[in-house]
Structure formats: structure tokens, C-alpha cells
């Protein structure tokens, strides 16, 4: 279970500095611009969503193109001869 460290390392590397960054950007004296803060968060989330979505959609499209049975490179899978899939 060495992989349990991966999320922890990622949190330390990315999430924690981000928390500090956001707090540091607060300027005293003026009112927080609510709409601006929320929209900024929204666009950060959308950046993540579209990157991850692009990876997943890209993977699906590539798989659909590469592993379709009409692809010239398609090979019978080792499970086909056994009959019961």
C-alpha cells in the first residue's frame, strides 16, 4: 500500500500552498468582492474539469477508434476462443 502516500504528497505539494496563497491575497480595508471570488473559483474548477474531461473523453475516443473490430490492427482477444466470456 505504498500508493497511500501519493494523495498525501499531492496535498502537501499543491493544496496547502494554495490555501496560504488564497489567504494572503486578502487585502484589508476593502469589502470582499463576492461575485469575483466565486467566479474565480468557478473558473479554476472548470479548468480542472475540462482538463480531466479532455483526458477521459480523449481516452474514450482513442479507444473507440483503436479497439473497434474494423480497425486493421484489431486482433482477436485471448478470451474469444474460450467461448464463455
Amino acid at each position: 500500500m505504498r500508493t497511500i502516500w501519493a494523495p498525501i504528497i499531492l496535498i502537501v505539494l499543491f493544496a496547502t500552498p494554495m490555501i496560504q496563497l488564497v489567504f494572503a491575497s486578502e487585502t484589508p480595508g476593502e469589502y470582499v468582492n463576492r461575485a469575483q471570488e466565486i467566479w474565480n473559483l468557478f473558473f479554476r474548477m472548470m479548468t480542472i474539469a475540462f482538463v480531466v474531461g479532455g483526458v477521459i473523453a480523449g481516452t474514450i475516443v482513442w479507444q473507440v477508434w483503436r479497439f473497434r473490430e474494423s480497425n486493421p490492427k484489431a486482433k482477436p482477444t485471448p478470451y474469444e476462443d474460450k467461448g464463455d466470456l
Partner: protein
Amino acid sequence: MGHSNWPEWIYVAVVIALLVYVGAEAWNIENLIDHAPEDAEIIKVTAQQWFWSFEHADGTKEIGELHLKKDHAYKFEIHSKDVNHNFNIPEFLVLMDAVPGRINTVWFSPNESGEFDIQCREYCGLIHYNMRAKLFVEGS
């Protein structure tokens, strides 16, 4: 399982890391906007089927219109006289349910002057679609 499954665990770890980031970011921003400033002026908002009425701190009352000043902080105390409504100014992302028997609060500070829409965002019956008001923000 019968075969090695490490790619799936790495994938799950990445998903969890992303979710932790999303959660932390959301918590931050919520923390930033949650508390109203001390000097916010209180405006009482009353929702009823199917119009909005407002009462300023100095006792001035308005129906269907709300006049505010730019760069002042305002805290809305929202309640409803009949069914659930939702007080919403889309331009400034002000949004809070008006629930009978409760007073909900939300605050904001208009940073531009002009004329904006106020609408009801929670289904409240026959004329829900037209339960609208106007927000006028006057320059400082």
C-alpha cells in the same frame, strides 16, 4: 482479482487528490465570503406571493424596487410571509432562501452602479416566473 491492479489505485489516488484540492479551495472561498463585515447596513427583505418588499435600516420601505449605494456593505435579513422563496440577485451572486418562520442572512457590497434584476429562484407557485424586482445601485 488474479492480476495486478496498481494502475487503478494510482488513478483513485489522483482522483482523491483532485477532490481534496476542490474541497479545500471551496472551503477557502466560502470562509472568505461567509462573514458579513461589522459595518454592513441591515436591509430586511420580505418575500410573499409574488413580490418583494424591502425595509432599510432607517425605516424607509420599498416595494419591488431596492435602492442601494455603491461600495457600501449590505446585509440582507430575508424572511417569507407565506411559502418558500429564494432572494436572488444574479449579477452579484446573492442568493438565499426566504423561509417562513426563519430569518436567513446574506451580505454583499455592490461594486458597480446601475440597474440590476432581482428574481425568485425557488418555485413558489402561480406567478413564480414573474416574481421580480429591480435593484438600483447609485454611484458613491
